[in-house]
């Protein structure tokens, strides 16, 4: 009897709870976290800050995910990884059901085989590219410390800690899944790194935009499906890599897409300040925070970066208000505040090109106009009407 009544009670409770959510404007929301896994950048970052470990960051992230879930029964989370050398960008939670089944059911040997075949195909591609990476001189050292970290993560948190401590079931499931996924990622990573290094210095591009793009498509799908039509969403990016790993045009495309969808992109930046990510969060009404004290990451994540989309219009966001919007010259890479823009391809130049041709699209500029731009300002003897003269 107890069991039956119990179930009935919980069911009605759930139903009423849902109704309440519809009546009051407390719609559930989705939190998407994108974790930057760039191995080289992590290594550099950890060398600079002795007291930081990747483990701390993941555990802080898990705390944040759990607290988001605890806020509302309808809340959802998803986790992506980006900049990983082996996998590029990938969703690690929630995994597609069929993928999970395949992974659990199929033998490891089969998996290995398919992985190998994948690798070889990728390798062929890479051989065709002959882009060189500049700073790969101390390659062998890189792999070893990574291994150590991997081993630490591998054994301790996921298997032992979670199972021993009594925690809320849903949290446990999610935490385990995410940690397992990260484990397996990191197990692959050193091999991949070594391979990349042995195949004479290949160019690997950053995949942060890929992760954001996928996250946005998933959010789009979610907001269009009937069950979760009013679902609000936000994306949080935990980034360690610098601006050089971000492809400019695709990053801008993702920013505008997010802006149109009214999805905020929050940025939790470890390491150096990133101008692109600052602009990202500014354009999408998000929060940008440079983490100065990585040991207190949990605090940052659970306060400044924990603002629900519904609260955004009310809360004053803890973000910088003065942002560097200056552009960089396409040719000299100098940061400029007054520049010249080609009317055909919109590339930004810091000076008038000497050959009077656009360096990117090779279209010829009008000679008269260039001459006028190059004209030096003249001091007129009389105070006639002041004319604007371009330098």
């Amino acid at each position, binding site marked *: 009897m107890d069991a039956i009544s119990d179930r009935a009670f919980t069911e009605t409770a759930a139903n009423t709870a849902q109704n309440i959510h519809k009546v009051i404007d407390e719609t559930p929301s989705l939190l998407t976290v994108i974790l930057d896994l760039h191995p080289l950048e992590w290594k550099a970052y950890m060398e600079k800050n002795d007291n930081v470990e990747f483990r701390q960051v993941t555990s802080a992230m898990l705390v944040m995910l759990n607290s988001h879930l605890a806020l509302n029964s309808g809340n959802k989370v998803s986790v992506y990884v980006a900049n*990983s050398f082996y*996998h*590029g*960008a990938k969703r690690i939670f929630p*995994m*597609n059901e*069929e993928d999970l*089944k*395949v992974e659990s*059911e*199929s033998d490891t040997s*089969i998996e290995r085989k398919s992985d190998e075949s994948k690798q070889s195909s990728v390798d062929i*591609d*890479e051989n*065709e590219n002959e*882009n060189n990476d500049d700073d790969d001189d101390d390659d062998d050292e890189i792999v070893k410390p990574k291994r150590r970290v991997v081993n630490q993560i591998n054994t301790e948190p996921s298997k032992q800690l979670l199972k021993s401590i009594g925690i809320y079931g849903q949290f446990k499931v999610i935490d385990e899944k995410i940690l397992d996924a990260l484990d397996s990622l990191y197990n692959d990573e050193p091999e991949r790194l070594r391979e990349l290094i042995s195949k004479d210095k*290949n160019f*690997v*591009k950053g*995949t942060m*935009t*890929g992760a954001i*793009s*996928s996250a*946005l*498509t*998933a959010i*789009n*799908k979610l907001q269009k499906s009937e069950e979760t039509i009013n679902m609000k969403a936000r994306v949080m990016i935990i980034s360690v890599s610098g601006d050089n790993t971000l*492809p400019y*045009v*695709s990053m*801008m*495309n*993702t920013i505008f*897409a997010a802006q149109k969808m009214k999805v905020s992109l929050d940025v939790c930046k470890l390491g150096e300040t990133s101008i692109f990510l600052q602009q990202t969060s500014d354009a999408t009404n998000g929060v940008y925070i440079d983490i100065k004290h990585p040991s207190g990451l949990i605090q940052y994540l659970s306060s400044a970066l924990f603002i629900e989309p519904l609260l955004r219009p009310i809360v004053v966001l803890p973000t910088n208000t*003065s942002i*560097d*919007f*200056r*552009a960089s010259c396409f040719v000299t890479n100098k940061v*400029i*505040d*007054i*520049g*010249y*823009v080609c*009317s*055909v391809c*919109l590339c*930004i*130049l810091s000076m*008038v090109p000497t050959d009077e041709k*656009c360096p990117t699209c090779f279209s*010829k*500029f*009008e000679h008269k106009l260039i001459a006028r*731009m190059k004209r030096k300002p003249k001091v007129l003897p009389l105070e006639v009407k002041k004319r*604007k003269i*371009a330098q």
Partner: protein
Amino acid sequence: MDDDDESIRVPSGVRRRANLNVRSSDSPNNKSDNREAKNGKVTETKKKAPEALKGVNGGYAWEDEYRRSWDIVQEDESGSIETIVSGLVESQKKRYLKNVTPFQRGIIRTMVLVLDYSYVMREKDFRPNRSSMMISYTIEFVSDFFDQNPISQLSIVIMRNGLAQVVSEVSGNPNDHIEALKRLKRVEPEGDPSLQNALEMSRGLLLHVATHCTREILIIFGALFTSDPGNIHSTIQSLVKEKINIRVIGLTARVAICEELCKLTNFGDLKSSYNVVLNEMHFKELILDCVTPLAVTKAESENTDGFTLVKMGFPSRVSDSEPTLCSCHSRLVYGGYICPNCKSRVCTLPTVCPCCDLMLILSTHLARSYHHLFPLKLFEEVPVSGFYKSKHCYSCQVSFPKGEGEMKKMRDTKIDKDDERNSSDAGIETPRESFNAINKHESKTNFKNKNNSRIKISSRYRCTNCEQDFCIDCDIFIHETLHNCPGCESKCTRVT
């Protein structure tokens, strides 16, 4: 029965899709309108030929053989209608199939928007009436226009009482125009339209525009006549001379003078420049099509003078605790942007500095126009087959419907689950025997469901670069808003 009527309309959606696949750039359905006004004969015939009325052979639907909705939905081999129903649902979602060849486009645009505000706009064939619907769509157009063409300028002119009146002057600030349009809502449409007056007025507005900008006029024309003070043909000649592009969206039927106008100012390209709306959705589509910048014609790109280089300032943003006056509106604002040239303060971007005339812009604004210059390749529809390699959409990870061969296999081989799993894992590399069997089965079903072979689709759309499969929702989203392929971006090696 109402429901049935709804579903009968479904195949027209399918047809529309088929038509779109042929990449006919204009809507296939305005042929009837063409016919109506070919001879310059402006009749009072139907304003809209609902596309649901169109039949397969290009004729009207009533000339077709009648097809019942329940004939279309047929069970497949397994007795399930799931695949067909999902196919029907999907065929109604229109895929993004625009031309994506990268063109040189006139990115810096100047446009005059001419709105018909004569008494014909009081007509109630659009709800609540023509003028208010036109204005609400125009507001949408203005915000989209500045969203995608951030360094362009716009002006709005109305035709009313036989005169042309400026609603908003040429400016690059979307809010000015939207405010003006909202004020216009309170004005009642009146009198006759005068095309010549409006054209002369827009010509005057576009006269001083620099050579690196495009000069465009977009006319929304509801009437079937124009009352002009002089010879409109000479006006058209001067427009041609000044290289002004004119596009017309007709609300009623094709009018000979508009046809001539568009033909002469667009190098004879009538298809993209002159269209008549079929219904509200089509109206919206047509007006939003004008947001994309025009491709530069060959003659223009080969011009001898060369292109221009524009001097622009990239101001930095400041924030103050005390409000200060901005130099553009003299309003009190907290913070704002500082012009790098003269250090005056402006409150919104993009704008032209009121003190030193320098064009002020954010670098992100420039980046907004990039997707017109480097469009994303279209995805290819994966051909229907028994087995598919991909199980779920790459980006949103929603599962795809299974291939028919796979479904059959799942039913037929009720042996071991593991065995079956392995075969589906292998995907394309299935043993030859089973593959043949599937092929046979495929052809059989095809033969049987001759009627709805068109409906059967794989639901997978593949990027040709990274060879990942996407669902229709993601395909639409990726091409319309994102302009990034998640598959290509997620690959850690550079795609060549």
